[in-house]
């Protein structure tokens, strides 16, 4: 397994051009972006030897991964390789799964997320999550967004907070006249943006997205991908995606996970390679990565 630190992309805006799936121009002159004159963005997550077991059975091991600020990091790989499990480690959602044990060290801004004094509830206020299937509460749009601020204690200027969150999620114009209508009356893509707005309303630092577009049509998917690109100016985004082209389009850094035969013979997830997205998709170092991105291996 190759351990490579995620390299900062010296020019992140080049990745997100709509309609151009890969940075085709200038391929011959582009080198790995280790431009030392640009300051490396600070680390948000520094994960060392992260592993997860479910009821004693190992599902993930030895993940060394760094997530940088104000960037989109994508986790790709085949089914069952632990990407979602790893994502859940970052906001302690694995705590809610009975029998789940996390080992290794996960530093969030140099603070151990699993330290003895850390409150998981506080962690989740700073590190929000959006799920694969949109899960708005069966309430009005207003109450959906208001839930977060209300429980977290940000009760002042609620209307303004809600408008701000909906604007950032690119949903305000579509729902501003019907905030009191039920959230379940929205389309799938709108519901997912509502869930993003709901997560933004508590003013998090990081947004985790677990396959946010897999239940959506292409147009909604495109809208959410544009949203991810605009969100990274103010937040740090980590997404898990089955869709490689999506990772190619939106992510600055891509991490490829796969499975290995574990000690007991069961398959367990491992991190194979992590690098700037364009490197992963033009000349990956590990042949397993090449096999996966070219589709030679499912």
């Amino acid at each position: 397994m190759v351990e490579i630190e995620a390299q900062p992309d010296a020019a992140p805006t080049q990745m997100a051009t709509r309609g151009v799936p890969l940075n085709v121009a200038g391929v011959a002159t582009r080198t790995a972006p280790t431009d030392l004159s640009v300051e490396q963005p600070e680390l948000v997550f520094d994960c060392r030897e992260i592993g997860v077991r479910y009821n004693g059975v190992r599902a993930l091991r030895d993940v060394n991964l760094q997530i940088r600020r104000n960037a989109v990091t994508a986790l790709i790989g085949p089914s069952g390789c632990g990407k979602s499990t790893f994502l859940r480690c970052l906001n302690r959602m694995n705590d809610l799964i009975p029998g789940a044990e996390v080992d290794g060290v996960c530093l969030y801004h140099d603070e151990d997320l699993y330290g003895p004094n850390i409150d998981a509830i506080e962690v989740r206020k700073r590190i929000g999550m959006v799920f694969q299937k949109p899960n708005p509460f069966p309430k009005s749009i207003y109450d959906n967004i208001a839930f977060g601020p209300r429980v977290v204690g940000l009760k002042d200027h609620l209307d303004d907070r809600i408008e701000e969150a909906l604007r950032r999620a690119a949903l305000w114009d579509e729902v501003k006249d019907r905030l009191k209508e039920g959230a379940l009356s929205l389309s799938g893509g709108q519901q997912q943006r509502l869930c993003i707005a709901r997560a933004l309303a508590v003013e998090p630092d990081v947004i985790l997205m677990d396959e946010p577009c897999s239940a959506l049509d292409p147009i909604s998917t495109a809208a959410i991908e544009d949203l991810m690109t605009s969100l990274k100016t103010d937040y740090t985004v980590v997404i898990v995606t089955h869709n490689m082209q999506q990772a190619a389009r939106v992510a600055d850094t891509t991490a490829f996970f796969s499975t290995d035969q574990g000690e007991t013979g069961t398959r367990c997830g491992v991190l194979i390679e992590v690098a700037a997205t364009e490197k992963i998709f033009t000349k990956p170092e590990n042949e397993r990565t090449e096999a996966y991105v070219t589709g030679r291996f499912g």
Partner: protein
Amino acid sequence: MNAANRTASTAAANAVASSLVGRRQRSVGARLFLFYLVFSTGFGLVALAVLLGTILVDGLPFLDLTLLTGAPSSNPGMAGARPAILASIMVAIVLVATALPLAVATGVYLEEFAPRDRWWIRLIELNIQNLAAIPSIIFGILGLAFLVRGLGLGPVLLAGALILGLQMLPTVIIAAREALRAVPASVRQGGMALGATRLQVVWREVLPAAIPGIATGSILGLSRAVGETAPLLMVGAATFVSYNPGLLTQYTVLPILIYQWMRLPQADFQGLAAAAIIVLLALLIAMNGFAIWMRNRHERKW
């Protein structure tokens, strides 16, 4: 395409078309089953209609203000059911105030907070299932031993209501758990991912979403409790009470009054009993209506 091919393809098309037409004839088994379903439904409806019809025919002539506002008397012309009506309503109120919240809270705890793998949780769940099946008269004996005599309450309305509450608990707990289980896990996940505590998520999102189901279960339990006779007789509900009851006084409820009137020899009392049944039914329908209104109020928000 020559003539032979054309004929062949037309014939094939016709065969497909006609195969679609023939399917309306169901097999004998399917028809029998359908008949059985319709028959059962019809049977139940007819039985209910006959029951209601008989009651209405017998009771409506006797349904007047005296019945509703008068006190029981040995003279059928003057007999009323007011104390019993009031007592039944008070029992319902006590149940809603004590047993219902207790049952819902128990359901919420077992479904949302209790650790699943402990043996004593399994034991509790098993016992709740069993409690639901216990005959009502056993509750009556229980109430007599612990509330009336043990606690020293005496044969008062509160004791009767409490024991009916105990009987009602399992039904509502099970209904509440089912309603909570029907709320998708994604709602809880979404709430917790926002940094809410489990209590906040349950109180603000899960419980409100489960209210329609809980309301339905509660009404079932409540209706049964209001119609109970045997346990109340065991805890000493009197059969002749002419004053308005209070929580700590002797009392009688509508079902017991009906029972008593049915046993009296005068023919008029039979009619009065039927009229009292109509009143009881009206009370139950009113409670049901209230629950449906509660349910609709919560469903509209979705």
